[in-house]
């Protein structure tokens, strides 16, 4: 009666649109910008788009960057996919709405818990972005938020993928967003430098996608996705092998790597992975975005752009003279040797 383990007819999952807001000008024409600026300063603020096309100026004034970036990226992703009401809204965020969290916390601490107003508390909850998108679209469908550090986006994507595979949904809006805030990132940056976990500035950004069971005009197919909580460097080869086997894919099918190198101590994982693919091009994107919990969503955006537009690879890196369009991209990210993710994106 309870049907806990039915035969699953696994459906293919396609990415119909991808939109990123980042420290580069990735939003204005949804392309890889002609000029890329390395994020060498102490913080890599996102280039905030013109919000007036997406949010009324009165609302925008009350919203923190995470909410604005989320709404703008989500709205654009929906319009590029020509979807007005998705069958689900799933967001990821590592640190949530930091700006309002800090504001409310400081309010409590400075005023010794007296004369506290609720606005920043209301806007501080981690599910604010997905909730606000729901209200904006008047979308009463499935709505959830994942808050699992650097795997927040991947967690949201696993849920979205499951929704499509279950046949519960045709189109899901999924993405991730993190904002710098004002104070907290300084503390996390301090910890990062104590542990030598990155040499990059703290960053922020949002990337949203419409994923679908429909291949028509899709940018890419999401072939496989796996997250691994804990993986010793010597287990990496086995884990990769298992992932590829389960994805019915060979090492030699992959023709581009998108890697999360950040200059820190744990880059050894990326070096190890690259060594399994001696003749394959690879891209390190984090020097352009800074490091943050939602940056793997940017990597996914990049993968989608590269798969859907042949000319883009050269613009990304003019040292790459071979402008063959990649057909199958492996994305790999990890955080201090934990929270690993493998993702396979395939041309459509």
């Amino acid at each position, binding site marked *: *009666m309870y049907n*806990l383990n039915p035969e699953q007819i696994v459906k293919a999952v396609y990415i119909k649109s991808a939109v990123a807001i980042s420290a580069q000008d990735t939003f204005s024409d949804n392309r890889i910008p002609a000029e890329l600026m390395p994020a060498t300063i102490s913080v890599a603020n996102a280039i905030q788009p013109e919000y007036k096309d997406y949010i009324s100026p009165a609302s925008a004034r009350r919203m923190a960057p995470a909410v604005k970036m989320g709404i703008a990226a989500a709205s654009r992703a929906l319009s590029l996919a020509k979807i007005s009401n998705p069958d689900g809204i799933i967001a990821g965020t590592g640190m*949530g709405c930091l700006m309002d969290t800090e504001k409310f*916390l400081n309010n409590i601490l400075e005023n010794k818990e007296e004369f506290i*107003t609720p606005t920043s*508390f209301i*806007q501080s909850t981690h599910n604010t972005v*997905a909730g606000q998108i729901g209200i904006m679209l008047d979308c009463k469908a499935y*709505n959830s938020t994942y808050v699992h550090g650097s795997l927040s986006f991947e967690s949201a994507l*696993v849920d979205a993928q499951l929704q499509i595979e279950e046949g519960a949904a045709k189109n899901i809006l999924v993405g991730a967003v993190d904002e710098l805030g004002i104070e907290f990132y300084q503390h996390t940056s301090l910890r990062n430098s104590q542990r030598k976990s990155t040499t990059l500035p703290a960053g922020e950004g949002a990337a949203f996608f419409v994923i679908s069971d429909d291949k028509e005009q899709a940018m890419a197919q999401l072939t496989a996705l796996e997250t691994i909580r804990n993986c010793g460097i010597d287990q990496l080869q086995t884990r990769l092998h298992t992932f590829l086997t389960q994805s019915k894919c060979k090492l030699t099918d992959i023709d581009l790597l998108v890697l999360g190198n950040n200059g820190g101590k744990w880059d050894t994982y990326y070096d190890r992975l690259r060594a399994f693919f001696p003749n394959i091009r690879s891209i390190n994107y984090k020097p352009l975005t800074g490091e943050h919990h939602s940056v793997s969503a940017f990597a996914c955006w990049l993968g989608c752009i590269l798969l859907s537009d042949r000319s883009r690879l050269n613009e990304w890196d003019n040292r790459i003279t071979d402008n063959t369009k990649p057909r199958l991209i492996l994305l790999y990210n990890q955080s201090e040797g934990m929270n690993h993710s493998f993702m396979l994106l395939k041309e459509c």
Partner: protein
Amino acid sequence: MGIISAIGRTPEEHLSSLVQAKSGLRKLQHIESIYNNKIPVGEINSSNEQLAKDLTLPEDHNYTRTAILGCLAAKHAIRDAGLLTSNLKNDALISATTVGGMDMTERYFKEFGSNPEVQKYIDSHEAGDSTHKIAQQLGIEGFVTTISTACSSGANALMLAARLIRSGMAERVIAGGTDALSKFTVNGFNSLMILSGEACKPFDRHRDGLNLGEAAAYLVLESETAANRRGARIRAWLSGYGNANDSHHQTASSPEGDGAFLAMNAALKSSGLQATQIDYVNAHGTATPNNDLSESKALLRIFGDAIPPFSSTKPFTGHTLAAAGAVEAVFSILALENGVVLPNLNYKEPIRETGLQPATVCIPNVMQHVLSNSFGFGGNCTTLILSKS
């Protein structure tokens, strides 16, 4: 299943408090706040130091209270399921929390930049931290993630767990939620003017707000095949789930309870049950004027004139936020196993607009199916249906 809250540390202790109508609400004690000894809360009556001892943590640990509670409840759930931590390597863990490590962040925020001794709590701030600690304590290396959809988080963790099992992604999932009381949430709800100065009165005409609580609850969900293979005792079935969004307001429920109605409807549909087959509803019932009216209207829309016995158990534990959905799933299972409708304390008069009367005493009732509601800020509404094994 494992649970720790203001009314006990085991499912048995919870059952005994519930049937004896013993509330866990007491004046706030364990956090430094101007509301200390003033507002009633569902607080677990142990200091962090005592609780850390129960978990045998080393002295320099950076476990927040949220993480400690989560580990205690999850470890209990494993024992209750007849499992050892050495069995859990391939299992998945889905945990829910709202404010993550805020209970420590709010103590040391202004010292983070300067005091090396407290900097370890910078790392425990993010919401995924308590989940990692639970995974580590249990030896879980399968799919691990954290959900935060405000007060429906725990229910969504259980829903995802069921979906992972159905899809074949996991055979066994440990799922639930944990949230410790913090100055941040006490002040947050107080500034919204929805904290009651007295013990809360769900579904009463004169209800004047909620009480906060802290808790952790985890359930071991397993596919039928896997459970039978190891001869596990099956306490209940998670037979239906539904998630919908109210898309009305960031903190207020819609007047007709649209999200709640849709979530209950979706849960019924996924279980293949008719509304008439539900024997008891464990309501969200926070005792805020807005929630209880909106939820009552949604109940009327689902059940019409034949509303099954229903109650809110929030007057026992307080509103335990991200843990609530898992706490109340445990309560629903206790109700199923023992054939009792749990009492809704502090109720006197019906809400004028709807006239609904919750069960106020423990009523014996033959039960097959219990429906449990969890609604949150951001319009997040989730319903679970638990059925007798």
